[in-house]
């Protein structure tokens, strides 16, 4: 493949990675380990992405953050990686081999002197709901998203800060400066990897499930935080409405996905598996609890996945019901939820009382993808995911030379797939640098034949 046709001569052997989720981290480490300079940009105060929010990973039931945290730390310590957290890409010019990137470093109001002691957060009088815990928990206006955050530097949430100055006064190393302003920085990179990730569909628009109306109807990501030992309930699976332990839990698959009505008519590909994982998690916590998974089609296609589901059925007694509940109603006195569904064996409409209902929403593209796509001049598909040039043969290449994509910003996928794609994207990004360097030497602004 004529990779470097039209490519500019390499200026610096460096790569920009946009998005510090698991795929961004993997791509950065792969590139850095082969001696290239990596700028890892993330919009949030910490790298880690969605995987850091998860409790366990399937099908091995490993602790999610225990796998991810060492990689995050490695990113921080790696001499070839520059972490640019709480930063956004503003503008990109140039072409493969020499991209000029403008990055806005948002004012964190805390500098590198921060030791992460947390006194400022304790003293802060503001309490707002925590995005990392999917609004189940609370945090102060000066915060780290979670204890394992990398870098462990506190961030001031300017939207909610009341500028009382208590944190400034309490900070021993004098790291806090509430008047800090955004900074712009310019870098030159040879190639770019976009790994901006995904969002989950907001189920409140599906009125029949009452998400947002009934406190005990939650999303799967909220459930991950409930089950997590560092989450808002310290790992106890309790109901948000009254704090009672949830004994009967129902999962509903394909909420928003595979639907012509919502417009997300694709399969989110990970939900069947993570619902199974979460069901086993519940059973591990409380073996007496009853877990029901309402699914439409069970799509478990990866290595060891079917065995995982079989284990859930046979060893753990998770009940799979191949029907979609028509509606959920709440008992106003107890907060219990009543699901109405057709019983698949005798075709009658049944009603089930559940303590907690977990919706497994569609993976959707981030609204910010549009902006990034505009900056990168990369095409997106009808759902807002980045388009690859040739899905079977060039699964990480975009229509722009030197710009690659990996992870869920390209389409819904699970963690192993994201990691594999990240390594692929890293390889391609490195190839651009190797070839531009070989062809053009160190001439500046010359064009390669």
């Amino acid at each position: 493949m004529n990779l470097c046709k039209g490519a500019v001569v390499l200026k610096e052997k460096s790569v920009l990675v946009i998005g510090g989720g698991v795929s961004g981290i993997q791509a950065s480490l792969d590139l850095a380990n082969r001696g290239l300079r990596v700028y890892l940009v993330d919009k949030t105060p910490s790298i880690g992405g969605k995987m850091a929010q998860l409790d366990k990973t399937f099908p091995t039931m490993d602790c999610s953050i225990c796998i991810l945290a060492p990689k995050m730390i490695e990113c921080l310590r790696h001499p070839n990686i520059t972490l640019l957290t709480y930063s956004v890409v503003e503008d990109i010019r140039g072409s493969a081999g020499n991209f000029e990137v403008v990055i806005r470093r948002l004012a964190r109001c805390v500098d590198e002197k921060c030791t992460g002691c947390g006194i400022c957060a304790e003293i802060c009088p503001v309490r707002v709901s925590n995005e990392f815990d999917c609004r189940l928990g609370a945090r102060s206006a000066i915060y780290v998203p979670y204890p394992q955050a990398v870098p462990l530097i506190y961030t001031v949430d300017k939207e909610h800060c009341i500028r009382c100055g208590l944190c400034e006064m309490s900070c021993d190393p004098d790291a806090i400066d509430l008047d800090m302003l955004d900074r712009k920085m310019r870098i030159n990179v040879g190639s770019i990897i976009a790994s901006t990730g995904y969002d989950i569909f907001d189920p409140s628009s599906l009125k029949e499930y009452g998400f947002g109306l009934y406190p005990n109807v939650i999303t799967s990501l909220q459930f991950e935080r409930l089950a997590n030992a560092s989450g808002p309930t310290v790992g106890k699976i309790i109901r948000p409405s009254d704090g009672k332990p949830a004994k009967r839990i129902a999962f509903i698959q394909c909420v928003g996905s595979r639907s012509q009505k919502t417009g997300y008519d694709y399969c989110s590909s990970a939900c069947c598996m993570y619902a199974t994982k979460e069901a086993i998690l519940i059973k591990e916590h409380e073996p007496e609890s009853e877990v029901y998974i309402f699914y439409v089609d069970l799509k478990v296609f990866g290595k060891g996945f079917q065995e995982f589901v079989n284990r859930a059925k046979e060893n753990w007694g998770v009940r799979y019901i191949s029907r979609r509940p028509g509606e959920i109603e709440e008992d106003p006195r107890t907060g219990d939820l009543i699901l109405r569904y057709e019983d698949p064996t005798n075709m009658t409409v049944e009603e089930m009382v559940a303590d907690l209902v977990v919706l497994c929403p569609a993976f959707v593209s981030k609204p910010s993808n549009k902006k990034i796509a505009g900056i990168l001049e990369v095409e997106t598909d009808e759902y807002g995911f980045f388009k690859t040039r040739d899905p079977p043969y060039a699964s990480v290449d975009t229509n722009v030379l030197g710009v690659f994509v990996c992870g869920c910003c390209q389409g819904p996928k699970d963690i192993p797939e994201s990691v594999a794609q990240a390594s692929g994207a890293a390889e391609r990004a490195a190839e651009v640098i190797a070839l531009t360097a070989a062809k053009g030497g160190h001439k500046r602004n010359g064009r390669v034949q």
Partner: protein
Amino acid sequence: MCAYFAFNYSRDVEEALSLGIETIQISKKLLKATPDAEKVKYCYECSACTASCPVAWMFPKHYNPKILLQKVFLDSREVLNEAGLWMCARCYRCYRRCPQGINLPEIFSATRDLAVELGYTSQAKNKLWEALKLIKEETPLAAVNTWLCLRPPEEGFKHSEVEKLVTKVLKNFVDDYKKEKILPTPKTRKEKIAVVGSGPAGLTVAYSLVKMGYPVTIFESLPETGGMIRVGIPEFRLPRNVLDVEVHRLNKLGVEIKTGITVGEDLTIDDLFRNGYDATFIAIGAHKSRELRIEGEEPETITNAVDLLRAINTGKSVKLGEKVAVIGGGNVAVDVARTALRQGTKDVNILYRRSREEMPANPLEIKEAEKEGVKIHFLLAPKRISGRDGHAVVLEFARMKLGELDDSGRRRPIPVVGSEFIMQFDAVIPAIGELPDVSFLPDEIKVARGNIVKVNPLTLETTMPGVFAGGDAVSGPATVIEAIAAGKRAASSIHRYLGGKDSS
């Protein structure tokens, strides 16, 4: 021998082929007649339609929308002889729940048309009769409900073949009531039950409980029974004799109906318990018009939609003027508009703030209203009523555009800046929704946002023991069949509450 085999073989094949061809032709015709037929291929049989269907809940053995839909496309000849085909009550719950947005009621309606068109007339007649018998067994309002759902147009209007058939069968069915000898059911139980409101939910509860042997009394504040069916649904959609016949049957079965008694004014819920009633069912419906909440909304400038319908339906004639604006996109708005036409208004306008797709009214009725000459304007919202200019009401509008999806799953209308304009009408009738009037309820009964009574969804018991509620008072404005289903549910739950054997 050989020739014989050859002859027989070819005959069988021919027969099989001709049958096959007929099935294929029916399927093709169905596909043509079906709206959004291409969506059907996305159905993945999740059964959300069945799970949300009130008819399937009441008649699990006879009606299952998912299976009926499958039959429509897999066994198209057979489905034309199905009783279930005539049981869909067009509440559109399945359509709203379907992840693929398959319009089941419209598909069934098209299939019914086709059944008659293809000459399955006698089967259709029998099956409709069968469906009516089934519904009559379970509910007191078989004819009312079927009349409302299958919608034969009023006399004097052009009827299609299927409408002619439906009208004929329904008329026969109603006549049958008169011939029927109905004896009061023996009162085998001591516990007395009070029902507040005589709408579809109240009548159904009374019917089911009377059949179980309970003495039931219905309290109705209006002079006549029927609730919204009588005062809310215009006569052109439901002839009053149909309702009268069914109420009469209920009377004969031994239900005591006390009209002209308003619970809340004449006596309270506590009084009912003191007077020896052991359980109370609240089916007060939703009779209060929602306010527009705009500047200048005063009794002099606007006409109340529910009051207007009530006045006309109880025989009063109302002068609306030459040019009328109905604000809203629901069934009540369409009913008001069509009623206004029949009151002699020439220029009737429906103004709706979203587009046709989002309009909550029954699509069939929208079509009929437009056929009759009602003008529907989309993406218009009233901003201000600048008062009366002599005779006319001056109304300021803003044009709307549709934005992102809101909580109701519909696209939110956003005013277009600088698009305001002024129109004058003789009458402005806001019909943007109805609320239950719950002011008389004791504090023990909790009420949620939108004035709806909070109940346990399984038993329909309110937060006050022994008091049950159902119908529009619980769900907000909905269809007759949903109220009937709530009535059935409440009846079995009251039966359980009173210590009878578990019926389900």
